[in-house]
């Protein structure tokens, strides 16, 4: 059995130390940078087969026929499956709406949709056999935008919808629509001295994780299946997989394998059901690994969006009202679109105080690639637009853009457009002040005694300008992101913590189903256990479905939720240990009964610091073992007409200042510095916090100046599914990212912490755009900005 090491099993042998607040090193860090870390694509099993997925070559077509005979007759092929081979009545899956067929049925709705599966004894054999499957398509009209989707005679992407949104959407090609109306925007507009409107376009961004979708399904003797896979949420996968296989969930045992990045792109299923189907059909282990080309079709992307905004303000700089309309392209299947709509609507005006708003957000069904979760989740697109608007209004008023934002900044106690009161610190003005007060990077940093250092110039190693024609610009932006699952979702996480003595030393074992996707959760869990239980030895068990759900590694929620679950369970374990101690040693010292007791440095100590006993002596041969669920406070659904409701758990804020240098002649941009200030509540691991902020900032930079999946508007075919054609920033494109971390506790959250992963992705993009606008004087209402938008400016 060659199941490889997973990130979580590594902590056992690592020599990491440190409790919360310390920059403990990651157990997987060295292995990853030295190339030794085993990712899910490295999974291997004796006698395993390789699965391959045949995908549609057209975006919208009826399937007239599928002929698999030639593929089946290929030597080395063990199975070929189509929709007709699915074993149960459950043939669809989906995160929120089960609208996605496991294999295409009757028609295909987007380019790259899975049509058939092949298992063979060699990956190349499987691929060649798949090429012999003859699929006859009959083309259908392609729906690619709002006009074609909502035309009265539009072909329906999904006929016969019976999901819970169909009752309130104005057209069946709209997945979900969320208006928010508060105050009276029409009347408020009469008070406005300036009114600014704009239309903005946000391109389709890809998560571009480096580890492609992959996993290994192993059939078990009990008729079940063991699935090793890189995912973001084991139990959500499980709920979608088991019914399709016709197995009870206990017979589908899932274990997290090494995950090479996620960013939302692994929240939906990819190869999971396919691998299990092939394994159960052939009775052999089946591995599926997507190549890079296929990976672009194997996961959802960030919703591209069109956004219309109108802002009004009085002459003294106070916002009067905001009207906006956000149209997100959800593509062919719903994925997370409903929740993305809720976020886009509820966070659409940004971290500002505006009492009179009229907001509408919706997601379309089209034949474009399905879009769903990606870091920032609906708040990113809105932030790009409202921050551009804030600069325009400030310019109209003749105000400094930062000052204008500060005048309108929300704070603790502000009421959101949803009617929800922000009940923890919201240091928006302070974050802006911090990035603004930072000294600007020196001008003309490319000048050296040996001539121009082209790496510091627009064009980089392309060796273009040596400084001539280069103009500097500075831009600011700030954003607001919700943390955790919203709108009444029962969001919880589970942690099992065991404490026992091994070789004379107390050892804590932490078992959760949290997907470590690179965010550093396993590091933080060990820190929490050390702090709460006073031990040095902490074993983090591999994440699997033998323990309760940890929820998704998304929505900036895992440190809050599974970190919270580990903390809570540790506290309960600590009480049990102390109870044992009281029973064993209570009569020896009065403090056992009277004092507040803690576990520290392997001992039971009083809050005054007096040691009462060794934990090892307290435990002896006993094992304390608890599994508990942790929930954040409940939220409410947004009213479908007014958008009112306490929909969110917590908010997260970040601000950026971008300094760019633009070669206006050739349209090339060098982002020189992208400073960030963010409130994190409490930095459990300061080094990881800075890493997350720098990563999110860079992902925001990518969509500002280069990242976009190009979909042909006539055919809805994806045109750049490779890393040669879909460009992401290299280290040369990545600026210095100084980070200023605030720690203002949220009393509702474990340790006062605030989810941090997404907020920096929001404000990074509009800050870069603002800086480029300042340098060039161009309007730039679309992202990404590329040379064609700038050349000759």
């Amino acid at each position, binding site marked *: 059995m060659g199941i490889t090491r997973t990130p979580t099993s590594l902590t056992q042998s690592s020599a990491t130390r440190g409790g919360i607040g310390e920059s403990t090193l990651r157990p997987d860090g060295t292995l990853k940078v030295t190339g030794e870390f085993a990712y899910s694509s490295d999974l291997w099993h004796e006698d395993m087969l390789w699965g391959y997925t045949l995908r549609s*070559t057209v975006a919208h077509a009826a399937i007239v026929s599928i002929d698999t005979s030639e593929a089946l007759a290929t030597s080395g092929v063990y199975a070929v499956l189509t929709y007709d081979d699915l074993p149960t009545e459950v043939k669809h899956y989906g995160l929120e709406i089960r609208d996605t067929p496991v294999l295409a049925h009757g028609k295909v709705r987007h380019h790259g949709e899975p049509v058939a599966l092949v298992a063979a004894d060699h990956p*190349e054999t499987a691929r060649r056999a798949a090429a012999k499957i003859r699929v006859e398509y009959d083309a259908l009209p392609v729906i690619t935008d709002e006009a074609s989707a909502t035309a009265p005679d539009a072909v329906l992407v999904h006929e016969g919808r019976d999901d819970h949104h169909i009752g309130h959407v104005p057209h069946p090609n709209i997945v979900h629509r969320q208006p928010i109306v508060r105050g009276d925007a029409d009347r408020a507009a009469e008070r406005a001295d300036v009114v600014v409107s704009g239309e903005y376009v946000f391109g389709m961004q890809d998560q571009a994780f480096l580890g492609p979708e992959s996993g290994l399904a192993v059939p078990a003797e009990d008729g079940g299946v063991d699935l090793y896979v890189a995912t973001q949420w084991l139990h959500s996968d499980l709920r979608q997989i088991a019914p399709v296989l016709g197995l009870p969930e206990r017979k589908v045992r899932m274990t997290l394998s090494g995950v090479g990045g996620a960013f939302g792109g692994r929240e939906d299923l990819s190869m999971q059901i396919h691998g299990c189907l092939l394994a159960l059909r052939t009775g052999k282990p089946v591995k599926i690994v997507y190549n890079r*080309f296929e990976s672009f079709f194997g996961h959802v992307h960030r919703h591209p969006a069109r956004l219309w905004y109108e802002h009004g303000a009085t002459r003294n700089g106070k916002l009067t009202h905001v009207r906006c309309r956000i149209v997100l392209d959800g593509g062919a299947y719903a994925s997370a679109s409903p929740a993305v709509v809720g976020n886009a609507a509820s966070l659409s005006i940004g971290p500002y105080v505006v009492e009179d708003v009229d907001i509408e957000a919706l997601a379309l069904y089209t034949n474009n690639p399905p879009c769903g979760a990606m870091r920032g989740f609906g708040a990113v697109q809105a932030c790009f637009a409202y921050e551009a608007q804030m600069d325009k209004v400030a310019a109209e008023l003749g105000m400094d853009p930062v000052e204008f934002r500060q005048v309108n900044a929300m704070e603790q106690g502000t009421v959101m457009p949803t009617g929800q009161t922000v009940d923890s610190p919201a240091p928006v003005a302070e974050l802006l002040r911090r990035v603004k007060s930072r000294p600007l990077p020196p001008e003309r940093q490319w000048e050296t005694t040996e001539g121009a250092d082209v*790496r510091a110039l627009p*064009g*980089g*190693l*392309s*060796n*273009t*300008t*040596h*400084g*001539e*024609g280069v103009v500097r610009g500075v831009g600011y932006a700030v954003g607001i992101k919700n943390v955790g699952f919203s709108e009444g979702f029962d969001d919880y996480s589970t942690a099992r913590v065991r404490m026992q003595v091994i070789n004379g030393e107390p050892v804590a074992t932490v078992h959760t189903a949290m997907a470590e996707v690179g965010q550093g959760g396993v590091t933080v869990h060990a820190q929490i256990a050390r702090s709460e239980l006073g031990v040095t030895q902490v074993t983090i068990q591999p994440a699997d479905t033998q323990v309760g759900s940890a929820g998704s590694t998304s929505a900036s929620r895992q440190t809050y939720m599974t970190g919270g679950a580990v903390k809570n369970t540790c506290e309960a374990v600590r009480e049990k240990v102390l109870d044992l101690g009281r029973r064993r040693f209570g009569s020896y010292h009065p403090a056992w009964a009277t004092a507040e007791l803690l576990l520290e440095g392997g001992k039971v100590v009083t809050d005054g610091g007096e040691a009462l006993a060794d934990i090892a002596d307290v435990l002896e041969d006993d094992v304390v073992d608890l599994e508990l669920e942790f929930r954040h406070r409940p939220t409410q659904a947004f009213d479908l007409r007014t958008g009112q409701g306490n929909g969110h758990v917590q908010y997260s804020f970040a601000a950026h200042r971008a300094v760019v240098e633009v070669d206006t*002649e*050739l*349209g*090339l941009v*060098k982002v020189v510095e992208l400073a960030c200030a963010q409130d994190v509540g409490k930095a459990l691991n300061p080094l990881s916090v800075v890493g997350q902020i720098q990563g999110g900032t860079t992902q925001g930079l990518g969509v500002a*100046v*280069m990242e976009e999946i*190009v979909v*042909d508007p*006539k*055919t809805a*075919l994806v*045109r*750049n599914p*490779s890393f*040669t*054609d879909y*460009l992401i*920033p*290299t280290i*040369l*494109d990545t600026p210095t990212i100084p980070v200023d971390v605030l720690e203002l506790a949220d009393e509702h959250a474990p340790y006062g912490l605030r989810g941090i992963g997404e907020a920096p992705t929001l404000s990074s993009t509009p800050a870069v755009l603002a800086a480029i606008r300042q340098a060039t004087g161009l309007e730039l209402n679309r992202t990404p900005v*590329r*040379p*064609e938008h700038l*050349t*000759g400016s």
Partner: protein
Amino acid sequence: MKPFAYRRADDVAAAVALLSQDRHAVFLGGGTNLVDHLRLGVATPDTLVDVSRLPLDRIEELPGGGLRVGATVRNSDLAADPLVRQRYPVLSQALLSGASGQLRNAATTAGNLLQRTRCVYFQDVTTACNKRDPGSGCSALGGYQRYHAILGASPECTATHPSDMAVAMAALDAVVQVVGPDGERAVPIGDFHRLPGDRPHHDTVLGHGDLVTAVDLPPLPETVRSRYRKVRDRASYAFALVSVAAALDVRDGVVADVRIALGGVAHKPWRASLAEQELRGAPATEDSFRRAAEAELAAAQPVDGNAFKVPLARNTLVATLRELTGGTPR
């Protein structure tokens, strides 16, 4: 990937003979382009004849001050060669602006010259492409054309040539040495790559079995300054949107000689002879440069997706010439 036989040639004659015997054999150099195409299904040869280890890996001085670059000289070695850096900085710069260090270590001189287009339709075997599958049509027409040609395209093909090195060689009047079934011949680089016309599946004038053995670089007068500029979407690891290779000889403020080639704008490295004609004998001023650029680009036939390349090519050319005159920044 379709299965193929692998043969290694011991000398040039054997290599040519191996290919001549097999219609479905191709030469394998560094493999940085061909192996991608094998994996994508764009290339489906029966046999690979490995020529990467032929004794063609030397850079030699030619009588009169030129250089002969062997066909298997790796891009990294060519860029770093002291004589190349001294005499043909434009070539060294072009090489270093292409690909990544790892790819340059593997890629050969001949292979770079013979790179095929990065057109997304050419690389996507599920779409029609006259270059990949003659007569099947051109999906780029009316499709995604951001990277496509503004000069010299045909209704059959609007692809661009991706090489940086070849653009510099075009400006340097390089001569390609070829050995084929019918013997040796020398092909001026301007005649080496083709415009698509109605036969876009032929990138070059080479026939089956023709092997590039070397590229000769003629001497440049010492007063000539040369420079390569490349505009792309990120600071490294990306193909050119537009590039300019220029060699300029200015005497007493007047352009005595000039050679210009453009990359990213056509099916072949585009020698800008109209611009050169405009410049020869003209004062080396911003105005002349602009007029020259406009003279060359007057024939451009952009479409919506690539119209930006016209001003971008003009600006890049003007900026390059300005820099070569040591002119003051704007």
